């Protein structure tokens, strides 16, 4: 009996959470646009959320590309197909690893920071005091961070893929001796703009929405105590990682299945 009660309660809580998160996002984004006030806030958040995440994204991308080059070469060379290394590296990065690993790193680097920052603003009554000053914290605090996440994650995913391909090039061509011309020309012939690049882009936009949304909602509704904020930060990373991996399967099935 208790089992059924738990199922019911968890379902209700989940539905309530999704509903609350949707209302939060709606109230944050829908309303009279105020470009003069919003733009400086957005720029600042783009710097914090996007530019400051660049280093970890670039370094991870380089290493993942190098590993792909190495692993791909050892498999392909057995079949005499090492010219296919270019497309293999490029396609795995553009279609999968670029958007997915960027989203996971972004959740750990920027998402957790967003949650902790907003949770602390709630704990120190800064959000309440904004409300009492007749400034809507959803428009002022949540909205710019959401747009910043949405804009920066696809760009970061492209940087990840680009530097990853370069990493594959370093290992495959310069170290293991795959033919330079073959590496690039086979890649150019087999990567399609719409099918590969655009689908990767759509994936990273979806992940950007999900990760930023979870991070903002968890921060905004965090219990204003130290254990509450630490739990919210953990939940942000766990939930967004799971959501990214689950959604990635769904999107891959729809796009390439």
């Amino acid at each position, binding site marked *: 009996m208790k089992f059924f009660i738990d199922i019911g309660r968890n379902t209700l809580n989940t539905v309530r959470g999704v509903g609350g998160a949707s209302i939060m996002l709606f*109230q944050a984004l829908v309303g009279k646009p105020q470009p003069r*006030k919003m733009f400086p806030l957005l720029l600042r958040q783009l710097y914090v959320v996007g530019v400051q995440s660049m280093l970890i994204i670039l370094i991870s991308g380089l290493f993942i590309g190098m590993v792909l080059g190495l692993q791909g070469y050892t498999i392909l060379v057995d079949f005499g197909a090492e010219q296919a290394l270019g497309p293999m590296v490029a396609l795995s990065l553009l279609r999968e690893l670029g958007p997915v690993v960027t989203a996971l790193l972004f959740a750990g680097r920027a998402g957790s920071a967003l949650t902790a920052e907003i949770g602390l603003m709630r704990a*120190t*009554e*800064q959000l*309440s*005091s904004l*409300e*009492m*000053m*007749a*400034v*809507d914290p959803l428009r002022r605090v949540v909205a710019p961070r959401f747009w910043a996440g949405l804009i920066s994650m696809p760009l970061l995913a492209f940087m990840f893929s680009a530097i990853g391909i370069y990493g594959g090039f370093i290992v495959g061509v310069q170290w293991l001796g795959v033919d330079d011309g073959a590496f690039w020309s086979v890649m150019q012939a087999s990567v399609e703009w719409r099918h590969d690049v655009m689908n990767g882009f759509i994936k990273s936009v979806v992940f950007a929405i999900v990760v930023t949304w979870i991070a903002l909602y968890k921060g905004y509704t965090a219990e204003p105590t130290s254990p509450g904020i630490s739990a919210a930060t953990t939940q942000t990373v766990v939930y967004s990682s799971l959501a990214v991996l689950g959604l990635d399967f769904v999107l891959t099935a729809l796009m390439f299945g």
Partner: protein
Amino acid sequence: MDNLVTVEDVYFKRGDTSIYEGVSLQVPRGKVTAIMGPSGCGKTTLLRLIGGQLKPQSGSIKFADYEINKLGRNQLFNVRKRMSMLFQSGALFSDMTVFDNIAFPLREHTDLPANIIATVVKMKLQAVGLRGAGNLFPSELSGGMARRAALARSIALDPELIMYDEPFAGQDPISMGVLVKLIRSLNSTLGLTSIVVSHDIHEVMSIADHVCIMANKTIVAQGSPEQLKQEGNPLVHQFMYGEPDGPVPFHYAANGYNADLLGGGKP
């Protein structure tokens, strides 16, 4: 008497815990109204209800001509431009200087040019004695200074009502004296109406025109400080004179002491 805020028969629950059962009180315009009561009786909650951050389950809360608990989101934000609140922590924005903190509501709600905003900010800072501290960040201020800076921010838009949440909590005697003087003098010079939530009886009694005592989920007495000192209610008496035992018991509810000690030492 003309009342700026009227709270009528408010019932409020947080989760399953009932906080208020039929609270009614009046805040006369232009006066300092103190709300006192034992800690944990929900004094801060009352301020949040008046500010519209919480909604009561039943009853009505009126500010000027508006029924706060019935307003929509946009109307509520409009009404809030006429009131302000000094939070217990000060709630200064930690990423801005004191100057920018005080300029913040002006920049948000007015189209004044920068030099006029600077003038207004300096006047507000002068009023709380912090004109020299405009360039400091909140982390560089002492607790008392942070609260004064927050006070300057809350009067930036010249509100009609200002609500102080425990303004004296954790202050040394000097800054307490400064705050007492500021609350009283701002109220008279700016023609404000003030609500002070506190349990520092002597400080509050010295500046309040009207006092409400809250206990047992309702208002047990209200009136002028002199009236309350004469009040026959034993609970009010206990509170006003700080007696350790009385209607509010010293001991948290427990089984009989003897039975508990002889009962085998279970925790």
